[in-house]
């Protein structure tokens, strides 16, 4: 695994800051940006996968029970899944609660 971003020196960067380690964006945990998190009412979910399709972070996956959930390690809490859900089974809940 590559060094954490805040420890890389300028000499260690590839020319043009090209990233040669494929898929390293998973090391950057954007969940800490979140002020609200999506909560799914499993019973109402019709498994249409709209949330999965629209999520700009690509962090929504199929849960074991068949409904769809965001991976909170990466979910930034943008609320697009809640806005797009045709049956309104996703609610954004403030993180402070």
């Amino acid at each position, binding site marked *: 695994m590559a060094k954490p971003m*805040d420890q890389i020196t300028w000499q260690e960067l590839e020319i043009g800051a090209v990233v040669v380690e494929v898929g390293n964006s998973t090391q950057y945990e954007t969940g800490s940006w979140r002020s609200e998190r999506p909560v799914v009412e499993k019973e109402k979910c019709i498994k249409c996968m709209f949330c999965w399709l629209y999520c700009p972070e690509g962090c929504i996956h199929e849960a074991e029970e068949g409904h769809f959930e965001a991976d909170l390690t990466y979910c930034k809490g943008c609320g697009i899944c809640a806005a797009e859900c045709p049956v309104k089974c996703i609610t954004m809940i403030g993180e402070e609660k």
Partner: protein
Amino acid sequence: MGKVRKGVEVSIAIADAVAQADVDVIAAYPITPQTHIVEHLSEIVANGELDAEFVPVDSEHSAMSVCCGSAAVGARTFTSTSSQGLALMSEIFFIAAAMRLPMVMALANRSLSSPLSIWNDHSDVMMVRDAGWICIFVENGQETYDNIFCAFRMSENPEVMLPVAVNLDGFILTHMIEPVEYEDDELIRKYLPAFKMKNALHPDNPVSMGCFGMPEIYTETQMNREVGVRNSYPHILKAWEEWARLTGRQYRPIETYRADDAEYCIVTMGSYGETAMEVVDALRDEGEKVGVVKIRLWRPFPLDEFRSAVLGKRHLVVVDRAITFGGQGGPVATDLRSALYKKDGAPTIVNYVAGLAGRDVSRKDFRNIILEGKKKAEAGDTEGFTLYGLRG
């Protein structure tokens, strides 16, 4: 093409050079402020004389975007623009350098609007001075033709990996018919072998280019870039030396004319160097101990070569072709003053801005600039700049 000397418009000679360099992709906006350079290239490609993609895009912003894409896959890439075209391109122009994408641009220097002008000065290139491109200035058709090849050689060097702009004065050079000695295709192939780029985009070797940079890493990327530009310097010299070995024509970052024993010098960048040399010859006959210092390499700035050319002179008369509004002189003079600050034996600098938007600067004008500049220097009038030939 064999070795031949012919009378040719400089824009056409550039197109012929680009074809001889066997480029893979040319992307350019074909309308004003474009020159004949890409018009002739489109003919060469359409006639089947060059196996390349010619992409006539909808704007210069798109032109530079296409160039970035083609350079990123390791294709030999060329474009050309001027003035407003460069302004429109500027967003991606910076990105090309930051992503270290090798490509060559013939930058036909023309003034920025407004007032709308199509004529020559250096306001366009000075707008992108800090982009991190290697910037070369040429004085005549032969130098332009030669430096197209040198520029590709510099740009594609794995130790360099930077875009290169060959700056030539719009109209004064682009629309002039001059004798140019074309080199043999075989010599060009030897000088410029096929290009193989490290970390080029390819499905077998996936990489990410132009990533998001957080505050934790941005500073490091900029130092990497700064050192990259500085470290290109010895490779620029090597590219010119190798060209000299093959053709006998040698280029240097700073070139001088009758400067060794001169008491003072005129400093020029671009085609004005030729007029300045003629005027200096005439003034020498009258006993003036004056010489010419010409800046061929503008970025990376050849600090040591410049200092060794001018330290010990009494003063320099620096002719700029652009204004830095509200600044302390033209962009060249401002840089040179900084290069000489507190150095032992540093000459004082008198700065003229002349020839804006193609206003002719004749031999008589150069004579005035040199002699007036000397008087100003002797009187200690060395701050700011003088707009030469201004009415009122």
